[in-house]
């Protein structure tokens, strides 16, 4: 029913055969890579297959959940997203974080995204009921995804800098600096690194590229004027979520490197 009205607005349905045609890109790419002896074709095939399977599954899952909205289902999906995001962050880090740092990553992700998501859904969009999956899930996805990237970058810098240059921190302690002061430079840089992609994407937005959500809305027939309102709101929401999660990560994360005697704990 929904799709037929959208179709009246001039949206072109992609048939299965047309979709298969899009895979031509991948085939061309693989041939090129083979010729150049780059030997990364396995990864490309794996990525393409994963993307296809994951999206098909998500498509059916969302279709089902949108038709049968339930707060528990929405929450379950949200928690699943958070779980994957946290897992992804740990996987991406080059220096392995300690167990306390892992906990901090989880707590910061959850606390930062939940609070900014609730504010966004209830205050900005005025969603009712709050769990309405058609809005909740995609918006949560964007906030969690961007916060994940932010935390990844922030945690990576924080952990690697302290582990690579413990003398910088220790020598400040020797001169009477508190752990916060001794790590201030590293913490600030971690925070900056983490929010930089979001800030940069806001600067280029609309000129260098059209953001994904706005493009999607326009393609599905929504007026660009409505689409930009959503895009502006969601960008600010993303900014809020990223800033909050990374702020928590840095504040709490720094503490995990020190013991009660305010000594730097370094794993040997």
């Amino acid at each position, binding site marked *: 029913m929904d799709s037929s009205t959208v179709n009246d607005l001039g949206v072109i349905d992609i048939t299965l055969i047309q979709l298969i045609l899009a895979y031509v890109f991948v085939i061309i790419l693989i041939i090129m890579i083979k010729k150049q002896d780059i030997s990364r074709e396995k990864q490309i095939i794996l990525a393409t297959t994963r993307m296809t399977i994951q999206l098909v599954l998500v498509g059916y899952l969302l279709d089902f959940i949108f038709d049968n909205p339930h707060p528990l289902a929405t929450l379950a999906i949200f928690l699943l997203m958070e779980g994957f995001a946290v897992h992804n962050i740990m996987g991406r880090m080059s220096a392995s974080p300690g167990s306390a740092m892992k906990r901090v990553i989880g707590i910061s992700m959850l606390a930062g995204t939940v609070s900014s998501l609730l504010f966004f859904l209830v205050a900005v969009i005025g969603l009712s009921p709050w769990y309405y999956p058609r809005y909740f899930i995609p918006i949560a996805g964007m906030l969690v995804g961007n916060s994940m990237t932010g935390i990844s970058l922030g945690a990576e810098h924080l952990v690697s800098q302290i582990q690579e240059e413990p003398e910088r921190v220790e020598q400040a302690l020797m*001169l009477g600096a508190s752990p916060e002061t001794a790590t201030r430079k590293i913490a600030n840089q971690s925070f900056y690194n983490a929010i930089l992609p979001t800030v940069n994407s806001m600067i280029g937005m609309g000129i260098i590229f059209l953001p994904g959500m706005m493009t999607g809305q326009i393609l599905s027939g929504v007026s660009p004027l409505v689409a930009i309102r959503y895009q502006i709101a969601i960008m600010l929401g993303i900014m809020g979520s990223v800033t909050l999660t990374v702020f928590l990560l840095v504040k709490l994360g720094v503490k995990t490197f020190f013991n009660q005697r*305010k*000594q730097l704990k370094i794993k040997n």
Partner: protein
Amino acid sequence: MLKNAGGAGDGPLFLFLIVIILTSILVIILANILVDILVNILILNNASNFSVICNLFYFKKKEERMIDLFFLQNVEYKNILTVEELQLGEKAVTSISGPSGGGKTTLLRLLNNIISPDRGDIFYQKRRLEEYEPLELRRRVMMLPQNPILYGNSIRESFLKAQEFSGSVVSLTEAEELMEHLHLEKKMEDTTEELSGGERQRIALARLLLISPETMLLDEPTASLDSSNERGIVHFLADYARSRSRKVIMVTHAPEVAADVADQEVIIEDGHLKSSKFNSP
């Protein structure tokens, strides 16, 4: 006449005031001691401080035993350092020497509370290190490592970092004087990148002297200097410590230079205390 009458009336009043003030002081002192005892025994569960307070009353008798700055007892750190008993820093200048890798730096790090011993106790001015708030302790006992980081692009910035870290206000005029004493012909605006190893070490030393904590732990502060410069700086350090009633404990690779000025000479070898002797003035 009026004056006289006033004088006669003021006499008892004045006496009364003095009695009140003296009583207040006495009450405050007693209350302090009482609170100290209660806090130490009830909250920190630590009787040693109580004995310290009691010792105050027999100060004369115990004087000789209580003047040590640091006291180490059965201290063990990994397989690097084992010290059964050591009194350190009773007088202004203490030198610690011995072959490299013997545990000298570890000893300084323990005293600075950058690391804690696996076993045993370290006392600073009669209190266990653990009883101090770590930050307060490190602001009283600061350490200069062997390869100091200057933090800051210019010499001025490096000095200002000292202020940020230590929380004490530093004077840049005094910093310039210290640089002169340490034979550093540099300007505040000079960048730290171009400094040689020895210059860096002296800037860091000047920075520490500028903060002027009560105890300074120096890890080979003259390692990158030639012997004539080294002698001059060691003598300057000793004069500085004596004139300002500061304590200097320095690890040195050249005990013969330190011997000129050291009040106590400690030798550490293979993670063990080999000897500790006090030089008469």
